[in-house]
């Protein structure tokens, strides 16, 4: 379990990028739910934590791909692959994330440590 931060330090409507490998994004929705997904958009390298949170949906700040935070499914292109989700636990007012064992769907040029990056500079 990855300790993130006290729930009280992440206001509703806010997001936090957590340095992990790959980085993850934790969202506190206006409705008070907390979700965690891989922070990197599956379309191109951009931080979803910097995106536009509305309901249970995050819109990528770069090309407006939208993902359902509950399932990771793509709600709007240009992203095609879902974003990997992680299980969230809030215990004693503290946010914890259980990192998924699934393969992440990272965009071209982004890889986890120890793996060769696919793609490269133009």
């Amino acid at each position: 379990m990855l300790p993130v931060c006290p729930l009280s330090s992440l206001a509703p409507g806010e997001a936090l990028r957590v340095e992990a490998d790959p980085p993850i994004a934790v969202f506190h929705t206006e409705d008070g739910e907390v979700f965690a997904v891989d922070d990197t958009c599956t379309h191109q390298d951009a931080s979803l934590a910097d995106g536009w949170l509305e309901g249970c949906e995050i819109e990528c700040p770069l090309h407006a791909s939208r993902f359902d935070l509950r399932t990771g499914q793509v709600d709007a292109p240009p992203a095609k692959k879902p974003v990997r989700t992680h299980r969230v636990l809030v215990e004693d007012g503290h946010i914890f994330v259980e990192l998924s064992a699934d393969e992440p769907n990272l965009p071209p040029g982004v890889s986890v440590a120890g793996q060769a990056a696919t793609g490269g500079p133009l």
Partner: protein
Amino acid sequence: MTVTETSPSLIATLPGTAYTDEAVFAAEQERIFEAQWFCAARSSDLTGPGSFRTVQVGRESVLLTRNRKGEARAFFNVCRHRGARLCTEESGEAKRSFQCPYHAWTYDFDGKLVAAPNLTKMPDIDRVEYGLATISVQEWLGYIWVCLAPEPPSFDETVRSAVVERLGDLESIEAYDVEHLAVGRRIVYDVKANWKLIVENFMECYHCATIHPELTEVLPEFADGYAAQYFVGHGAEFGDGVKGFTVDGSEGLERIPGVSEDQDRRYYAITVKPQVFINLVPDHVIFHRMYPMAADRTVVECDWLYLPGVVESGKDVAASVELFHRVNQQDFDACERCQPAMSSRVYARGGVLVPSEHHIGEFHEWVQDKIAGAVPSAPTA
């Protein structure tokens, strides 16, 4: 002023080149429009987060918007990456952010760089430092005022003071509740004249009886040539039988509740240097902003502001708008008539001001003081 007029009644204007010289205009852009508070837009033009306008201030394009909290924000309209113009439209609604169409550098409504391709691989990039360059903003009288100077002059001492200088105090304008009035009509004039000709025209009434028959009918004292701007706190009184500030003297609209008995049936005019004219009458406020575009071209945006109920109910404001629209057309025609002659050899040393125009000399001194030293071969009057 180095020219001594032989007739004591007359003082000199600026020389003709002050109205045509590109170097003079460039100095005015830098030392005046980019250095002073500049009234850029009506607050209600920006309806909410992401609603934007772009305006020309001096040599710069300025992007005006509201952040997610609804606060007015102003930025240089330049992408920090490779300098592309960020917003090319004059107005619109940005949905989530301002995104450069070139490489997709993306800024939130506070100007912070929130996304760019591969930005996460460049964690050393400071997102505020490489965010949009911020411009100081004030909201007053329901308008968004910006100042491009890194350290703006005092808003009180340069803007509010102009109103106090004219009306005697701030309460006199607060009575009109200009902030909460609604735009009943906006007309934009593209005037082929130097901005100073327009200021000078607005400051004097020597021309009133000649070119403004309708206005002089409503404000008979304008026939004596002394503008409402000549005496502190004085408002020109409506003529007998004039029911309202309308093109034919017919009844106006609902009176603004705060307007006092002393202010009723009177017209007050204020110049806020360098580019704002405000006219106060009991039932509306006419608010002009000038956008100097070139030495010989000025865009003037003019709002007619009424009580919100007047605008919402769709009351006919045509007779009311028509009066000052005609005045504007008459004035701008006069300015356009002067502009070509500014480069005549006859006007090389400029013209003259009669006693009822002598206060314009103070405006000339203000301009010359601001641009002193900025023009290599500054012409002197």
